[in-house]
């Protein structure tokens, strides 16, 4: 009974203490909220991506294992091909056509990313046994019934509810019928059919509709492919073989990327997300730890009184653990809702990244709130328990001891030795991984090792560096010297917060330098490679060569073929042989530029992009067998140059343009060289041919600007993440400062008693914290540069098979310093402001 009563009294006391510890409570709850919402967002994104590629359906159709596509763009897949194959008995084929479009509601553009509009021959599909089987097994009867209705009669289209919601929100309309008023590609474009929601993750960012409605909306569209909805069994394999044997020469049968393969492809993405989640977990552990520390310190008088009243330490810790559990529950509930919202906000970017990198459809998954809650709650509970250990140990010590223990020098030396060993081991480990490993997960571990090694080095050197600074400061600046001395004391007590800041700063420098280098390399590459004056995007059948010649314009067709090489589809691209384009070539490796170019133009050598060279382990001078671009005869070619090709997911081989035959190869891009007057005359000719020059003829400078705008938009999310990391680290630091400010009271009292003003003492306090940050930033710089190098030359190399030179821009580094210090200053300003409001008597009454 006595025990129960003491638990009860302590719990009441805690509740009453809330009035006096509001700030600490808010900090703790904020820390938990940030942790749970961040974790939920990462889990939701991960789950959605997984769920969508694990779907067996393709555009709502089940068991699509293969598809027939045109071998090249020159001879497209036609309706007659489809009918002929059906007449041969291949009823399992279902035609589809897909294209990307902008959607408007009135004059307003409602989608930032272009939406895929996909038409499927549903009338043909509904009779197939695999389709009917799906309908029998699928619980979502409404969706299936809608499909039936669509195929037979109604003019409707299907999309995921999240996409409909997003479009409705983008239209800023409360009108629930907004989805019946969307027009295609321009405000005056064709009206889309009414959008019906189908909660199927395979829908991705697509709007699916019957093929007849598709061709009403896109009259000039082409069939993209014929999907094979086969049944399982040997008979299916025999039928596929028979189909492949009976295909016309211009068509080819290819296997669809299965969920399993896509899983393989996207595992690096999931690894990244996992790493992000772990980073989030660790960072949040820091801030929760500091926040708990802060709360316990604020409560210390109450705890001491409780002990004096005879409440056991066990009761004190138990009640506080229960309190943290309840805080966790509360934070999880709110955090998950916030996390889901956050995931929804970033999902278009995540979708775009995945779709462009892996050529998969990524949609919106359904995440069970309960399962998400269980995951997040258990992780945050484990994290909180870990975060509790250290502060509880300190409190336990504080409640036990009656006086401060003298510093233990022997322990300090042991600590230094341990840090030195950790730092050296991690450095060695990082070096080994980066040099010898090629697996992505190992490289991510190398990144973690590098950062942790940096932390160890920082902790090891903090006091020495600060002591050095102290020696440098002249004797006359006494207050500053005192302040630096205090920083040394602070550094030993705020290790965790300083480490958090160091991690954030290192990641920030690493990421920023990487993006900066990528931007610089892309800009210079584009600037060089986009050598012509104008570029024309035209897929029509008109021969523009003669028209260009009449106007005195040099027109270079960029021709392409898709070919098979070592079981993979690679691109065979034409490259003009003119002097302008010779100067435009950007080599990664070449022995002699002049000789290489001569060999290339004489068709005695080829250029390959980095993606090809790295993937197939090809080097300069290697001879490879490839089909000749126009005759398709397998021929041996020497690699005379490896060229940069940033951002291209495809492996590419360049041939001189004259080796291509326009009868076989597709062409959709033309490079134009000529004066403004000549181009204007050429434009007039194009207008006469009804070619839309406004959207297809682009000046090189505009193209470059557009490309860089797209680039900057893509990396906006990285900038956002950097700021968030810094904020979290600064928050952690702020918590630590508030705790430490108590320890500094004696020194502060002394200064204040000596007549130092409140303002000066606060400026000195700010200086101490900023000094700690500056030292951490200086340490973070070389580690950030190393991180950037690993990201570019190891991770990017293994993940995407291309690299670019690391560019270290001092201005960028200074910018990062300025932003980091500003964020810290902003955050720690709050505790210092609180301290400055205290009356003098509080400062000097330090022995409470």
């Amino acid at each position, binding site marked *: 009974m006595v025990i129960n009563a003491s638990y009860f009294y302590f719990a009441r006391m805690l509740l009453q203490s809330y009035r006096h510890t509001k700030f600490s409570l808010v900090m703790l709850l904020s820390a938990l909220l940030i942790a749970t919402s961040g974790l939920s967002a990462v889990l939701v994104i991960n789950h959605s991506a997984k769920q969508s590629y694990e779907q067996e359906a393709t555009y709502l159709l089940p068991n699509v294992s293969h598809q027939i596509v045109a071998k090249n763009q020159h001879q497209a897949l036609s309706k007659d091909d489809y009918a002929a194959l059906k007449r041969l008995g291949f009823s399992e084929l279902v035609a589809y056509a897909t294209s990307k479009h902008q959607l408007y509601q009135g004059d307003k553009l409602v989608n930032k990313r272009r939406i895929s509009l996909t038409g499927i021959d549903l009338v043909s599909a509904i009779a197939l046994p695999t389709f009917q089987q799906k309908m029998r097994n699928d619980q979502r009867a409404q969706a299936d019934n809608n499909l039936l209705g669509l195929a037979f009669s109604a*003019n409707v289209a299907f999309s995921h509810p999240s996409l409909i919601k997003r479009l409705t929100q983008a239209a800023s309309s409360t009108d629930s019928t907004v989805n019946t008023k969307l027009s295609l590609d321009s405000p005056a474009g064709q009206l889309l059919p009414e959008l019906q929601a189908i909660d199927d993750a395979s829908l991705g960012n697509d709007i699916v509709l019957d093929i007849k409605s598709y061709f009403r909306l896109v009259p000039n569209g082409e069939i993209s492919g014929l999907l094979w909805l086969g049944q399982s069994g040997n008979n299916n394999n025999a039928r596929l073989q028979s189909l492949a044997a009976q295909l016309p020469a211009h068509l080819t049968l290819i296997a669809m990327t299965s969920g399993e393969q896509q899983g393989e492809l996207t595992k690096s993405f999931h690894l990244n997300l996992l790493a992000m989640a772990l980073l989030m977990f660790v960072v949040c552990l820091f801030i929760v730890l500091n926040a708990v520390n802060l709360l316990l310190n604020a409560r210390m008088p109450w705890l001491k009184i409780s002990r004096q009243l005879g409440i056991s330490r066990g009761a004190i810790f138990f009640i506080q653990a229960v309190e943290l559990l309840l805080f966790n529950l509360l934070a999880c509930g709110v955090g998950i809702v916030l996390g889901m919202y956050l995931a929804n906000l970033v999902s278009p970017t995540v979708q775009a990244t995945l779709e462009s990198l892996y050529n998969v459809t990524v949609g919106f998954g359904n995440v069970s709130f309960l399962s998400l809650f269980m995951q997040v709650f258990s992780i945050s509970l484990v994290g909180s328990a870990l975060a509790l250990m250290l502060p509880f140990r300190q409190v336990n010590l504080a409640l036990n001891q009656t006086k401060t223990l003298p510093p233990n020098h022997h322990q300090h030396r042991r600590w230094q030795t341990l840090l030195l060993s950790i730092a050296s081991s991690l450095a060695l480990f990082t070096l080994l991984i980066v040099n010898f490993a090629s697996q992505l997960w190992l490289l991510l571990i190398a990144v973690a090792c590098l950062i942790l090694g940096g932390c160890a080095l920082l902790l090891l050197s903090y006091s020495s560096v600060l002591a050095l600074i102290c020696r440098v400061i002249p004797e006359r600046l006494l207050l500053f010297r005192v302040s630096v001395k205090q920083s040394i004391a602070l550094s030993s007590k705020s290790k965790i917060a300083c480490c958090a800041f160091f991690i954030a700063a290192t990641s920030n420098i690493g990421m920023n330098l990487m993006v900066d280098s990528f931007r610089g390399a892309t800009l210079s590459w584009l600037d060089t490679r986009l050598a012509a004056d104008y570029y024309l995007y035209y897929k029509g059948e008109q021969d523009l060569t003669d028209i260009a010649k009449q106007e005195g314009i040099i027109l270079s067709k960029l021709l392409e073929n898709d070919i098979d090489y070592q079981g993979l589809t690679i691109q065979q691209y034409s490259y003009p042989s003119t002097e302008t384009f010779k100067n435009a070539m950007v080599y990664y490796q070449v022995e002699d530029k002049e000789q290489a170019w001569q060999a290339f133009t004489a068709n005695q050598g080829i250029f390959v992009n980095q993606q090809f060279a790295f993937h197939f382990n090809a080097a300069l001078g290697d001879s490879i067998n490839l089909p000749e671009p126009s005759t398709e005869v397998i021929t041996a070619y020497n690699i005379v140059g490896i060229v940069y090709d940033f951002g291209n997911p495809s492996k590419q081989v360049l041939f001189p343009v004259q080796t291509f035959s326009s009868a076989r190869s597709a062409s959709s891009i033309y490079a134009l060289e000529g004066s403004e007057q000549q181009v204007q005359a050429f434009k007039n000719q194009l207008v006469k041919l009804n070619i839309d020059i406004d959207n297809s003829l682009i000046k090189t400078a505009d193209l470059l600007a557009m490309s860089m705008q797209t680039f900057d938009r893509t990396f906006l999310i990285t900038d956002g993440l950097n700021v968030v990391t810094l904020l979290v680290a600064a928050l952690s630091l702020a918590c630590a400062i508030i705790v430490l400010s108590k320890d500094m009271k004696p020194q502060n009292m002394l200064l204040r008693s000596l007549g130092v003003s409140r303002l000066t003492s606060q400026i000195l306090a700010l200086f101490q914290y900023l000094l700690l940050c500056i030292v951490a930033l200086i340490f973070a710089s070389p580690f950030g540069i190393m991180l950037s190098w690993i990201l570019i030359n190891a991770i990017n190399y293994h993940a995407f098979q291309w690299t670019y030179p690391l560019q270290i821009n001092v201005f960028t580094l200074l910018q990062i310093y300025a932003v980091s210090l500003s964020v810290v200053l902003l955050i720690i300003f709050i505790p210092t402001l609180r301290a400055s409001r205290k009356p003098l008597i509080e400062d000097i009454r330090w022995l409470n």
Partner: protein
Amino acid sequence: MAKLNKVTWLVVMLLLVLSSFLAIKTDFFDNVKAQVQTSGMANRLGAGASNQDTIGQQVVANYPIRFPADHGEHPAFDIEWWYLTANLEDEQGNIYGLQWTLFRFRTPTQLADKTRWSNDQLYMGHASVNSLDSHWFAEKFARGEVGNAGVKLNPLQLYIDDWNWANSASVSASDATETQALLPANLVFQIPLINAPKEQKHSVLQVSVALQQQGPFILQGDKGYSIKSADGAYASYYYSNPSIDIAGQFTFVQDKADQQSSSIAVKGKAWFDHEWTSQLVDRQTLGWDWLSLHLDDGSKLMAFRMRIKGQADYITGTLVQADGTQTLLTKENLSLKPSAWIEVNQRKLPLSWQVNIPQFNINIAVKTLKNEQWNPALIAYYEGMVGVSGSHSGKGFLELTGY
């Protein structure tokens, strides 16, 4: 007539399926309701109320059916079908029932979205073969304008994907009427096995049969103008050929790679119907029961009972005697009553019938030769071979819809 029943039932069921899910979403319902009201596929339509965009061409009396032109399609009408049923035997005396049908639907122009991909025509194929222990069945859908389904006139060809009914008159035939004729013809199709004992699994059945005309085409009703209900509100153009010899091969293709395919020769009697209309029953129609019989004395009998909500059943039929004399049967001289109800596919079906035509001394019992002959199509129905006993013996087909 029988096939009109089939199609009208199919269409009504189709619309019921549509409306059942449309009821879930009222906004969607309005959309299709408009279609139903304008399509002419479910509503009873008054003569002369034709609107080319919404309502198909109307069936009127005194239309002279002409061959071979009318073997082809009539795209201005809302629905049309070419329907073959046959009773077959192999050399061991095993019996088989065969059905092959090509349906055509016209969708109203305002909803048809005529594009280079689709016109206002839709095709549906059904094919079924029953042995006493196995059932092979498939259905296909296709749009007009794509090119994989339709009807060609010279030489005559009915096709959907690789299912093909093709005139087989000599290639040297100089007379176009011969190559445009429906018969003689070759029919080929292949369908998957859907039901059989484990030890007799044949995954796909390839059918290749020749059809030889043995008697004249019969114009049903009044010279092909066939009234369908007591009040005469529903009608179609309808002709049949009940005198077709059918012979050919069944090839059983195995699913397992290590098993060989096997072929058997089959032959028997077939019955063909061709019908087109825009005037069909409404949702008051509950379904119908239809029989086509080859009797051993050489006569052919078609009879059906239409079940209409709130009305007495409508019974009618046609008897073609061995000498070709044709008699229209009505409820006054035809009695058609179910005699046994058996559960198939979780529903009770009248699989035995008593047919009495006192005027011609016909009093026969008609019973299915196998109970499980349910076609699991998108809109499912019963279509199966029957045997005849009593005053006459014989074979034929029974169709039951709306159960």
